């Protein structure tokens, strides 16, 4: 445990505090900041942690801690694995989770690989609110953060033993925000609470605009239908729609209508009332387990279907690396979202909600 630990520093207070905790523990800490958008793109992405300005904040935080710091370029992998996937998913009628893609492909694949293989690092730490622990059998476990209000374990479900063996989440043990602030001020880190944004980090304002520019073919108007096939209106393109959102049509009838399905093949949107939500089964693809394998071929779990979503009772039936998710009650889930299995506070695994066939 005396090798170097690299910390992915975003320029924000959370990852800076993560680095501070490790430095205080006496670890040999190296700060890295990932450039995620090409130089000079700041104006278009004011909140993104991968812009020059964020890099400067990260550099200052590292200097305040007295740790080595490097700005490394991951713009290419981020563009392909996060931004392109995001656009393609929306254009295909899905609702992607870019934080999941970023964790899976950029932080815990490309960066972790470089830390270990290129720079001879021992471990990688990030400023995620989650906990990684080691059981008596040596297995690694992924748990919700102690501060449930900040928990980010949902977006980390894809981590397996290989990754978790080299990952630490130093701030996952913190009780609450005041503890983060206290550590930040003790180390002279900038504590200015930056606007905590729930927006997508690389999209300046309206994500639909990005999709419209990159995938204009997904902005062809088409019919809005009820479940029985009755056309009740027109939409401006499925690229701007999400399953589960309130639909603009139906105002005349006084009904509250929701987008039930997006059918990109024929450019149609199917809407209906809450009562029409009948789906209890979803197909999950690319199913992964923290332990490396499913607890059993069929198991009961609590599934979370969106970031900070409420756990729902469900059973999971494995089929190779896919699974069938059986919910206890009908629920509307947007394809492309992650379905994450929990056992209490522990993340068991998860998969990606597939578009219903036909």
């Amino acid at each position: 445990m005396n090798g170097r630990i690299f910390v992915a520093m975003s320029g924000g207070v959370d990852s800076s505090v993560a680095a501070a905790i490790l430095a205080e523990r006496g670890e040999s800490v190296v700060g890295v900041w990932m450039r995620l958008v090409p130089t000079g793109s700041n104006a278009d992405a004011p909140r993104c942690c991968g812009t020059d300005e964020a890099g400067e904040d990260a550099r200052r935080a590292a200097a305040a801690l007295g740790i080595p710091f490097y700005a490394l370029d991951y713009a290419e992998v981020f563009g392909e694995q996060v931004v392109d996937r995001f656009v393609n998913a929306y254009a295909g009628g899905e609702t992607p989770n870019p934080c999941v893609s970023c964790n899976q492909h950029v932080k815990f694949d490309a960066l972790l690989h470089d830390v270990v293989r290129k720079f001879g690092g021992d471990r990688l730490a990030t400023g995620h609110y989650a906990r990684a622990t080691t059981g008596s059998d040596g297995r690694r476990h992924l748990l919700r953060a102690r501060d449930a209000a900040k928990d980010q374990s949902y977006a980390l479900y894809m981590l397996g033993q290989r990754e978790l063996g080299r990952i630490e989440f130093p701030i996952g043990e913190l009780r609450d925000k005041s503890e983060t602030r206290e550590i930040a001020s003790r180390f002279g880190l900038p504590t200015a609470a930056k606007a905590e944004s729930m927006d997508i980090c690389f999209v300046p304002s309206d994500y639909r605009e990005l999709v419209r520019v990159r995938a204009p073919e997904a902005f062809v108007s088409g019919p809005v239908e009820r479940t029985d096939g009755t056309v009740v209106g027109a939409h401006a393109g499925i690229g701007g729609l999400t399953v589960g959102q309130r639909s603009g049509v139906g105002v005349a009838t006084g009904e509250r209508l929701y987008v039930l399905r997006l059918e990109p093949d024929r450019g149609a949107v199917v809407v209906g009332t809450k009562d029409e939500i009948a789906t209890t089964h979803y197909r999950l693809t690319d199913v992964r387990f923290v332990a490396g394998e499913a607890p059993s071929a069929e198991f009961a779990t609590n599934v979370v279907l969106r970031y900070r979503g409420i756990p729902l009772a469900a059973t999971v039936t494995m089929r190779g690396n896919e699974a069938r998710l059986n919910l206890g009650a009908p629920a509307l889930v947007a394809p492309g979202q992650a379905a994450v299995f929990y056992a209490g506070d522990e993340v068991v695994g998860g998969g990606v909600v597939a578009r219903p066939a036909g």
Partner: protein
Amino acid sequence: MDRVYLDHAATTPVDPEVAEAMSRVLHDTHGNPSSIYAEGRAARAAVDRARDEVAAAIEAEPSEIVFTSGGTEADNLALRGALKARRDERDGLVTTAIEHHAVIDTARDLERYAHVRLTVVGVDRQGVVDPAAMREAIDERTSLVSVMHANNEIGTIEPIAEIGGICRDLGVTFHSDAVQTVGALEVDVRKIPIDLLSINAHKFYGPKGVGALYVRRGTRLATMQTGGGQEKGRRTGTENVAGIVGLGVAMRIARERRATESPRQARLRDRLISRVRTRVPDVVLNGHPTDRLPNNASFCVPGTDGESLIVALDLEGFAVSSGSACTSGETEPSHVLLALGLDREVAKGSLRVTVGRSTTEADVDAFVRALEHIVARLRNAAAVAV
């Protein structure tokens, strides 16, 4: 951890004697060199002593030395000032594809905003500019030619005496960025037909933020900035007295030590190059094999990238660069390496190692050992998952 500094082309540590002289002048000489009373005269005397040192080092007259804020300003003053001064008769600028950004970006800026006709001449695979190609590029409207004395990334020394001769015959002003050579090589403006020459103190153990432009008597040069008229109006603004004093002392020390120090560094450079070539498979030496700066070893290491090399070496205690320090942070291959005709992928794995006064054989050997295992690790990394 013990550090081994091998990036003397980026900057050099300030010589203790230089720091001492600067500290003394900061404490004792507070006058403005333009003032006529005793304090002013003392400051002016300090600046003039430095001017004498710089002039003596390149066999110029003291009145031909203009102090600037460094190499970049000297290059800007040379290009902008010379072209502006002759713009009624001539509008052409000829330079090379491997100039420092301070020259090439200034040239492009002049092309875009000052109606200067810019011609950029390429180099051969060793980075050498062909004087015949320069001659070819010069026409009757050419005002200025700018060719660096030695390249900061690959170390190649350019035939500036020959190019200067061509310019003189054709009535063209000739500028050379000699930031990498002054202090390391003989630079004698009586022997080289040169009109403008850029000098930078921190490349020869002087302070950062001060340099000079040599302006041969009779060379037409307009000013870039207007103000109180210091430096005979060629570079106006209150003199950086302490910096200029530091430049003068650093210049004197460099001149005294050059005859022994440059050959010593060249031997270290050769040891480094030959050991790297033996121990690191498929490494490519950039620049000219012999006509190169005494302290410069520049390589491309296929199968690696410069960014990873620098980070990994830093973590092992070695300070080197992937190219020019001025552009670090960019992952695009340098314009210099691409001008050599190197493949983009190969050029990504660039590494510049520049020895200095404090470098020992043991430093070189330790560096080569570290490089050997880091290159092996980086090449493996490309093939292995986490």
